[in-house]
């Protein structure tokens, strides 16, 4: 085997890394509306996409339109991205539901800032976690990812695109203001060093194509608009042909398939990093920039003789239950630090079911959770 090629290194913001990741994953369409602290993603896309062969950048009139445009572009065969922050994320919920229902691959980056409402535009928070899970109406599956450093911003963006394409679903990447605005050195992977997945297209003559037919993976093939496969796309509950239906058995069939196509691939979707968890009595469960503080706290705790570990969540939803169960086999205490009032600790408690004691650290003052805060709680056991 040849020596691995040296990777290009750049000094980048988290938001810049998102753009690099998106372009590596094959993103060729960006539609968006500026909002702090996500705007750099849009600005860099505005500069980069017109220089690519078929890249399209468009600034829309609002976040509702941004979602509409990228869903439209995705239906026309593009890999699409938009980025926003809290208030814009609220506006996107309507069409996010449409993308789930119409099984449209797309990636939405939400750089979280303090809320509610206009809140704290330039300060970090993690207040949109449950909104990402349940923000759009109706029962629905969703994939929500996060990143805790700049390298992960790039890697997780690629992962987000791959999952969106593989499962024909919107994927939300939740960053916080700290991660998005941290500048550090990252490596750009060489082509071939990472997987790039593109949606499956139909492989039968158009007359036989049923747009929402059952498949093994539960993910039907998806042709781009204008490719000869004429079909109906709708946000209404639809039958296998894509036509609206109100028949109870067809409603159940669709909604169950939408869930099943995600649920049966938990092993592929639920991503975590574990640090020193194998024998840990105290396990910190953290995500985003907080996981960075937590990592340092865990190492310091080890130096002080406490068997601490970190379960870093890279997938927030579907919540990594199995990985949590694993640490619960020996952990007496779970520490969940977050920059919110306890949105993820709810999930942890749901899985914990009273086994370990769950200690939460919640900051809502627009400041980061520091390693020493976490360390203090770890040391209390």
């Amino acid at each position, binding site marked *: 085997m040849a020596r691995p090629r040296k990777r290009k290194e750049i000094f980048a913001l988290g938001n810049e890394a998102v753009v690099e990741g998106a372009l590596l994953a094959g993103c060729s369409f960006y539609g968006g509306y500026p909002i702090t602290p996500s705007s750099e993603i849009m600005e860099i896309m505005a500069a980069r996409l017109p220089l690519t062969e078929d890249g399209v950048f468009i600034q829309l009139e609002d976040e509702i339109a941004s979602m*509409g445009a990228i869903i*439209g572009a995705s239906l026309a*065969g593009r890999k699409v991205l938009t980025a926003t922050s809290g208030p814009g994320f609220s506006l996107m919920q309507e069409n996010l539901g449409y993308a789930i229902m119409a099984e449209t691959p797309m990636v939405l980056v939400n750089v979280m800032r303090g809320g509610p409402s206009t809140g704290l535009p330039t300060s970090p928070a993690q207040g949109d976690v449950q909104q990402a899970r349940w923000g759009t109406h109706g029962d629905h599956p969703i994939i929500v990812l996060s990143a805790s450093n700049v390298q992960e911003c790039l890697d997780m963006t690629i992962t987000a695109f791959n999952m969106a394409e593989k499962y024909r679903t919107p994927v939300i990447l939740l960053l916080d203001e700290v991660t998005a605005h941290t500048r550090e050195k990252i490596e750009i992977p060489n082509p071939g060093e990472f997987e790039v997945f593109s949606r499956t297209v139909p492989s039968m003559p158009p007359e036989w194509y049923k747009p929402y037919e059952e498949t093994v993976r539960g993910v039907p093939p998806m042709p781009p608009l204008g490719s000869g496969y004429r079909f109906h796309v709708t*946000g209404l509950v639809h039958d296998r042909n894509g036509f609206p239906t109100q028949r109870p058995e067809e409603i159940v069939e669709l909604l169950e398939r939408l869930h099943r196509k995600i649920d049966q691939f938990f092993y592929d979707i639920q991503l975590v990093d574990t640090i020193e968890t194998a024998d840990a009595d105290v396990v910190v469960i953290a995500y985003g920039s907080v996981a960075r503080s937590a990592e340092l706290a865990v190492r310091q705790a080890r130096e002080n003789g406490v068997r601490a570990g970190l379960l870093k969540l890279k997938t927030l939803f579907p919540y990594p239950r199995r990985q949590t169960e694993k640490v619960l086999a020996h952990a007496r205490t779970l520490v969940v630090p977050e920059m919110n009032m306890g949105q993820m600790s709810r999930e942890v408690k749901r899985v914990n079911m009273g086994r370990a004691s769950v200690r939460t650290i919640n900051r809502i003052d627009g400041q980061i959770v520091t390693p020493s805060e976490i360390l203090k709680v770890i040391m209390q056991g």
Partner: protein
Amino acid sequence: MNEITGNEIIHQYLRHNKKFPHVLCAGCGHGIVLGTLIRAIHTLAIPKDDVVIVAGIGCSGRLAVYVDFNTVHTTHGRALTFATGIKMANPKLNVICIMGDGDALSIGGNHLIHAARRNIGVTALILNNNIYGMTGGQSSPATPEGSTTMTNPYGQLDASFDTVALARGAGANYVARGTVFHVKRLEKIMVEAISRPGFSVVEAITPCHTQYGRKNRYKTPVDMYKWLKKAAVPIDRYEEMTEEQRTDRLPIGVFVAEDRSGFEERYLSLQAQMRAKGGK
């Protein structure tokens, strides 16, 4: 007689796996608009695969499901945003947006003016029936002042939007109004709207007897067509009329007809230019 008027031709564009008659009420003008649109596309000889119908929510939104094109039934008011994405992603497609008056002028009003400002190469077909039909007859921004509706049982207080003035003001490249009584004129308008570059707005006045007419002095659907026949006046004649004569009259015809290139064309040429420069 080889003129393309036959419903046989329309039948060839309907989805054969959909049940007919369609869901719309007896005498609803939406079917006529759909037929007219099909004839316009047929006249232009655009292959079915190259047509994308993007529809909003409401009675007009239901039309998309019946025609054998690429059809996208979107969220309420957002049809133009989806259409913008589709057109930008693949400029070769003929993207036609079907929206109602509530869809295009109320919840989607912002998208309408920005699509016009941007001059995106999409045809916006606004089916104005002066009411929210599907939800049961509530006031829309196109409900005439003084009309009775479910949400204005004592008479509509607000003034109604003039779609033509709105679209013109926002910079649409082509703006026209027709009615479902004057079908041939409407067809001509649609042919022109689809074949022009940039953003085209076609307002089709289409009566809703069930939710609007019945409550506003029109006893039968036919009465509403008689009203259209009487009220609609070609724009050139309308301009010669006195203020008094204009009362209760509706000018129809082409109001704006320009040839400014669409946003997607301008984007592509910018892209080519930037790439020729080799980046920066």
